[in-house]
């Protein structure tokens, strides 16, 4: 496949060079006519080779799966074709007096970079013209950029890098999984606070909908404070951490299920 492609490319390059060369040098003048002596032999009509007025690909660079449009106009050809399986694109009517015009367009969907060669011929000869459609591969989807862009705001970095700490019903104890989340958060916070010397993090305490609003407000407060105390014990600067309880006033989901309730029993981090 690769060698095929390479050879096709080489051929195309050759041909295009040849075609270009022709254009520059034509017309090759007929040898100077000898002084007419007697009646000349019946003149044989001189047939000019076809002319490729244009052969383009728009756009010339596409992502895999997108289309490029080939357009062409050829005059004076008896027959014209494009390789890569596109085949004959036109033939002149037999015995046509005026030079025939073959024009048209076609959409192509190459999956790799492909060179298309248009070949036009008549009794006077053959000309070729080539265009190349470059195909790029799209980046794999949903792959987060590994390093924070220096242009991200503090709030964006906090939202992206820090994870919620989750709690049991009616409890503000730091569970094993919350311990892991908070430990990771503390490592990240130390770096982030160095990169953003003016940012402050708010630890929001939330509760599920089942308790009373009043008790949940106290419980949310307790959860935020427990998360803060844990981070401070791991060496995160206390004066850059604020707590804010929402109780059950700002749930992130409202389904009547344990999955949703667990999502809402959390300490959540925002950056200012």
């Amino acid at each position: 496949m690769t060698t095929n492609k390479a050879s096709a490319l080489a051929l195309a390059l050759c041909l295009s060079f040849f075609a270009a060369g022709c254009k520059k040098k034509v017309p090759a003048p007929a040898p100077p006519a000898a002084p007419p002596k007697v009646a000349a032999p019946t003149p044989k009509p001189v047939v000019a080779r076809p002319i490729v007025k244009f052969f383009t690909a728009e756009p010339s660079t596409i992502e895999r799966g997108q289309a490029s449009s080939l357009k062409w106009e050829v005059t004076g050809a008896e027959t014209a074709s494009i390789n890569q399986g596109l085949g004959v694109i036109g033939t002149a009517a037999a015995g046509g007096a005026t030079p025939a015009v073959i024009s048209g367009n076609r959409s192509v969907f190459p999956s790799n970079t492909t060179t298309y060669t248009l070949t036009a011929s008549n009794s006077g000869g053959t000309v070729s013209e080539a265009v190349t459609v470059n195909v790029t591969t799209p980046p794999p989807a949903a792959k987060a950029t590994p390093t924070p862009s220096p242009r991200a705001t503090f709030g964006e970095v906090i939202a992206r890098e820090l994870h919620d700490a989750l709690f049991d019903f009616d409890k503000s104890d730091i569970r094993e999984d919350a311990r892991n989340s908070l430990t990771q958060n503390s490592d990240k916070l130390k770096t982030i606070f160095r990169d953003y010397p003016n940012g402050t993090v708010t630890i929001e305490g939330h509760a599920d909908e089942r308790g009373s609003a009043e008790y949940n407000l106290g419980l949310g407060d307790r959860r935020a404070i427990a998360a803060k105390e844990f981070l401070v014990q791991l060496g995160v600067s206390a004066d850059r951490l604020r707590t804010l309880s929402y109780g059950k006033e700002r749930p992130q989901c409202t389904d009547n299920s344990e999955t949703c309730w667990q999502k809402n029993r959390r300490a959540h981090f925002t950056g200012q």
Partner: protein
Amino acid sequence: MKNIIFSLLTLAAVAPVQAFAQQRPDIIGVIMGSQKAVIAVPDMRGAGRASGLMDIVNGTLFRDLEDAAVFKMAPKSMYPTRVPQQPQEFRKPLQYDPANRNAAPWLQDWSDPPVNSDYLAFGYAAEQDNQIVLFGWLFNVRQPEVAAAHVLGKIYFGPIDETGARKVAHEFAADILKQFGVESLAGSKVYFVSNRSGSKEIWSMDYDGASQKQITSYKSISTMPSVSPDGSRIAFTSWAMGQPQILVHSLETLRRIPFLNPRAGTNQNASYTADGKQIAFSSSASGFSQIYMANADGSGVRRLSNSRAVEVEPKINPKTGNEIVFVSGRGGGSPQVYSMNSDGADVQRLTTGEGQATNPSWNPQGTHIAFAWTRGYDPGNFNIFVMDVNTREYVQLTSGTGRNENPVWAPDGKHIVFSSDRGGRGQIWTMLADGTQLRQLTSAGINEKPAWSK
């Protein structure tokens, strides 16, 4: 009829022998009183432009009297066809004949079967000088003569529109109730939280759901209102300044009044002492929400409870001023209702430890609390309970119909306002303290956290 004028404290001792209490041998009889007078309230007619307002006049009067829970309403279908509009129409017959339809109205029309009423409220309305004028009388129909039957006769004036129609009816009802030693709820207000404007704000309405008005507009979260006993100030919890803090507004100017919050992530659940000079609240200044007390402007803060648990919703006994009920998760358990002295001593758990118990509220007599409890239900499915704080006997008023929360007593000590999502969304409801006479007061948006003020 003097026994209608009762005292809860004295009744507490004799309640078990009262007829009503025998039906429900519990604390409800103590709260609701016993025998009730029967009253007939036939629809009054109106002249001129007043005639178009009589539905409102009659509806408001009937409801005020029924809601007061001091009467048994005589069933309207039993009323006689000859309804007097004024006392002069009564004519004592030589021989009373209930079948004689041509006879003039007489007292026995109402006191005899099938009406069996003790009292008759009647009258008529007219238009006079661009005003609605209501002529209202209350007769004791058990008396043998018109002169003796006359209990009350009064004239009421109001603008000739719906507001005026409600006003004259409320005033007539209040005068009737006063004869039985009962303060009408008609002038009282219910404050509550509604999200109908797009964010949770404090609203007010009449006790029957009329004239709903927005009080705050912080466009944040403002909730948990508590009104000072004189009705001049309202304290609530708001995120308007960032963290949840206590804000106080004047109900006269609707402007904010300074309140000094302690330095804490959360200050909430303000509630006033009976004299309005102190506020109890909960604050997380120590790292745990705990119970605090301060002057009404937030100065002179002192901590009352001391635990490593979430403690919220302190409510000071309005009669003694000494006992505080509150909600605590101490002992690592689910929240329960506790009581303590106002100096923080003598902490006792009032509820059994089952389920979650929250939202305690004292009745005006300081003998009972209403509260929300999940006892017998899944977490979150609260029902309204009432407890005698001395004996710790309790009774369940609602059952299994959605979340029923934040019960608060009416000034009359017989009604309870609460929130319930039994209709799908949280709305404000009232009921009698025996669980009957349910009325829905709100319907726009989601409504919660009611507070009843005189």
